[in-house]
């Protein structure tokens, strides 16, 4: 998911095995990372993902200018009620949280 040329270069989500999904927010540089890190409230991301904030893992990786979230999948990959085999679409929800908090640019 390309998020434009402003603060964020890319937001992607993907399975981390069949039981977890992980979302990476790649910022352009150190300054953008600081801004995005402060804009992305963990509780807001948890709310958007309808996840238990206590089970939402967050990693702020300054060296890479990346903010990473990992959480148990709402549905196990490929189970009857799963809608997204590769966990590709969760990134959109994090982008919306960021836009609501001031934007990606």
């Amino acid at each position, binding site marked *: 998911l390309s998020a434009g040329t402003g603060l964020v270069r890319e937001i992607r989500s993907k399975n*981390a095995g069949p039981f977890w999904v992980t979302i990476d927010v*790649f910022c352009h540089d150190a300054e953008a990372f600081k801004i995005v890190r402060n804009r992305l409230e963990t509780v807001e991301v948890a709310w958007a993902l309808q996840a238990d904030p206590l089970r939402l893992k967050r990693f702020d990786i300054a060296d890479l200018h990346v903010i990473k979230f990992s959480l148990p999948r709402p549905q196990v990959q490929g*189970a009857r009620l799963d*809608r997204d*085999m590769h966990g590709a679409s969760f990134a959109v929800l994090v982008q919306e949280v960021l836009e609501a908090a001031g934007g990606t640019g």
Partner: protein
Amino acid sequence: MAPDIIAIDGGSTDSGPFYLGTGTCKYARASIKREWAMLMRARARLGVPLLIGTAGTCGVDAMVDWMLEITAEIAAADPAGVGAALQVATLKSSQSPGTLAEQFSQGAISALEGAPNIQAADFAGCSQAVALAGAEQIQAALETGADIIIAGRATDTAVIAALPLARGCHAGGAWHGAKIGECGALATDNPGSGAILIEFDEAGFTVQPTGAGVQASPHTVSAHMLYENADPFVLYEPGGYLDVTDARYTALDPRRVRVEGSAWVPTDAYTVKLEGARQAGFQTVSLVMVRDPHYVAHIKDWVEELEAVFRAREAPNIAADFALEFRLMGQDATLGALETQAMSRVRGGGSGVHEVGVMAIITAATQGQARDIARLLNPYLLHFPLTENEPMPTFAFAFSPPEMDRGALYEFQLNHVLRLEDPMAAFVLETHEIGASA
């Protein structure tokens, strides 16, 4: 520079539980054979072992046999290109579901974070189960001296880490380099450019792309630890875990990156991860397109009423248990309850949506039952009116017949580890002679 081994991770759970559940490969046999023949010829030219892990997508024993059969066909057809007489080692990873149930009851199996809450009977209910081989089992296969090693399910990294570990390279560097290399050029600035070369040594590893004009940078290499990893710093493997918290990434030049400082932390118990899938019924799918603006504007109400009337009227005609689920494509088919942009949740009622695909998914114990229920549902999808006081509508089906049998539904069942006293206890290593002298 010539490599010491050609190592490939040949599988994944990433395409879903069907392949493990059925014990089959995602890809066409012809394309596997074509690419494997190229690698076998490269092996012959270089005189190094060729190793594939998680053969046939899921890595069950039948897929190891399948790859061995393909290998023998290639050897018979092209002895000059791939070698006239070849020794092949096979490493099998399949587990008996019944044995796993016993091991679970005996306390040898424990759940990982996020695992389903299951009992011994659930292990026995798996149609297929595998254990993920680590470096120890791959090393045992390499020690046979085989030209080609076909391994069943193994961790992505063990396939690459096994040889450098066996030769005494830095353990943290071996596992970290293996993680960086498991998706090939994904750790470079051109993910589609194919293979990368990794040099392991006593202090770390160096990454070098093989594609012309392709570059690896500290950013592209370090970022790959994020990929498909819940934790960007820690990676659990059989016998321990990799910790890259203190890893240092240095650009040697515009193409190559040097990595040192990664740590391997052994654990007291030796465990291997388990994967298993079970059959969870059969499915039939119907898809109807709704273009009438009146119905599009009230699509949620239409589907809810249609389902209620269908269940009330047809329940006496359906003897089997079934699950019926509707997904509204163009509405919330992808994210379901997480969707923020569906018409029903947008102030003012719409955001330019002019058609909706209504996908009905029926799950039942047999394919026949699922199909029959889909056929009962069909007139409702075709003609169900929003209210009683309006003309009978007709909606658009793309196909005849409109219902599509999906076959069996499989679900992942296990997110557990099995404790082993002997790393080889859950695996079977064999050697085979193929080619002219066989």
